[in-house]
């Protein structure tokens, strides 16, 4: 069964007009915000494919900035996100790219402040569901059909085991997992797909583990 809950049918509650071009775009921005861990002071957003051609009409630009500001898909401030970002001193710019992407609804986000940067590529696959296909240069292969966790961490022994133990304690089963790093002992990324819903309490517990830099969840 592709759809499990009645609230997949009577829901989600969202700001219009399009689940893929608006709600999905908010979620891409929101994942970037959660992984960055704070409000960025600048954002460079590149649109590809259908996003590049129609982002103005669907409010995809507004939606991604809303996500970066930490607004969810149903936040009534969403239509004013560009003005709010300007008032809060977040410098945003957009570009429509000609390159043909693998998926028609693709956005590349580079965000940052004085202390750091983050780069992420997200795709909106329909009905508000998204996938993150690249994070800080790490390629990701998540199916998008299950709840997933993205965990930036330091490449140290025991970190993966500690994360798995917390998931086991919460009776969460791992369906797919990949770990990648740029260099031995440096920053690394765990991408974990699970079978059960992920609660905020669980995310908080993961965040408190040693060597964890940032945790973000991608909802099924």
């Amino acid at each position, binding site marked *: 069964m592709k759809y499990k809950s009645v609230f997949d*049918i009577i829901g989600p509650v969202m*700001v219009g*007009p399009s689940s893929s071009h608006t709600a999905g775009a908010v979620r891409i921005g929101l994942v970037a915000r959660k992984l960055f861990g704070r409000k960025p002071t600048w954002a460079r957003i590149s649109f590809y494919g259908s996003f590049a051609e129609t982002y103005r009409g669907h409010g995809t630009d507004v939606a991604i900035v809303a996500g970066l500001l930490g607004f969810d898909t149903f936040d009534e401030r969403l239509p004013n996100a560009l003005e709010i970002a300007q008032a809060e001193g977040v410098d945003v710019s957009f570009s429509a790219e000609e390159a043909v992407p693998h998926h028609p609804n693709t956005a590349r986000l580079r965000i940052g402040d004085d202390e750091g940067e983050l780069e992420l590529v997200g795709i909106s696959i329909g009905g508000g569901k998204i996938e993150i296909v690249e994070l800080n240069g790490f390629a990701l292969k998540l199916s998008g059909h299950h709840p997933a966790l993205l965990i930036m961490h330091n490449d140290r022994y025991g970190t993966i085991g500690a994360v798995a133990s917390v998931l086991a304690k919460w009776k969460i089963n791992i369906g797919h997992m990949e770990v990648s790093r740029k260099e031995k002992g440096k920053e690394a990324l765990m991408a974990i797909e699970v079978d059960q819903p992920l609660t905020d309490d669980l995310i908080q517990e993961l965040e408190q583990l040693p060597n964890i830099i940032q945790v973000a969840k991608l909802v099924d």
Partner: protein
Amino acid sequence: MFRNVAELVEMAEKDNIKIAEVMIRQEVEVSGRSREEVIAQMDHHLSVMERAVERGLEGVVSRSGLTGGDAVRMQCYIEGGRFLSGETILDAVSKAMATNEVNAAMGVICATPTAGAAGVVPGTLFAVKEKLRPTRMEMIEFLFTAGAFGYVVANNASISGAAGGCQAEVGSAAGMAAAALVELAGGTPSQAAEAMAIALKNMLGLVCDPVAGLVEVPCVKRNAMGAANAMIAADMALAGIKSRIPCDEVIEAMYRIGAAMPVALKETAQGGVAATPTGRAIAARIFGASAASK
């Protein structure tokens, strides 16, 4: 767990319960949440729908300027009293458009089953509210009933315009609304299934051809007609009229038609009314000439 409409109807009739109750019990089982939590969430979604209709009836305009104001126009016409069809059906039409106009204007809506088809289910519910005087719980049940039928369509066919055309979006929504209307009016579970079959049969083949790719033209008026279709289908089923083709087979037919539909007619803005001279001119005005020529 029900996998199709036949099983859904059978479960309701065997235990002598509403279809809404079958859906509530399944949601509690699958989600692991309490009955109270599940009902409270649907209550919240109902409140979102109410606010969207209220806002649409105050009058909104989309960013592109293509849609807005027709829900109000229809209410004024109803008040004039010189309408040809009927007050309840035109009220459903107005409230369906109100929801989709709010969606197009970046307002908050509840997708039912999608954002583009979000007007049909609440439009019909709030139109019959005056006549049937449902309790709050009965209105919540209306949404669970609509959800149960939508769940079958989503899992056996499609609720996405990109995958199945508008028949999968507004068509599914019309079927869901028709079934829920029957149950709210006191019809049986099998009558609800007949209503869904009748409504969906008359939406088969409907393409998804949004002008400039925006969820506005013809989407707002497709929701209006989806609501009208649902009201008539519900009345036909309540009159004892049956669909010669069973509901599950109509859903299967919808799926096959969607698979056979050319890509140009599935949410790509390349065909149908999107490809008319006026449709292309609108796209050029909004996105520039390059987007419109593709």
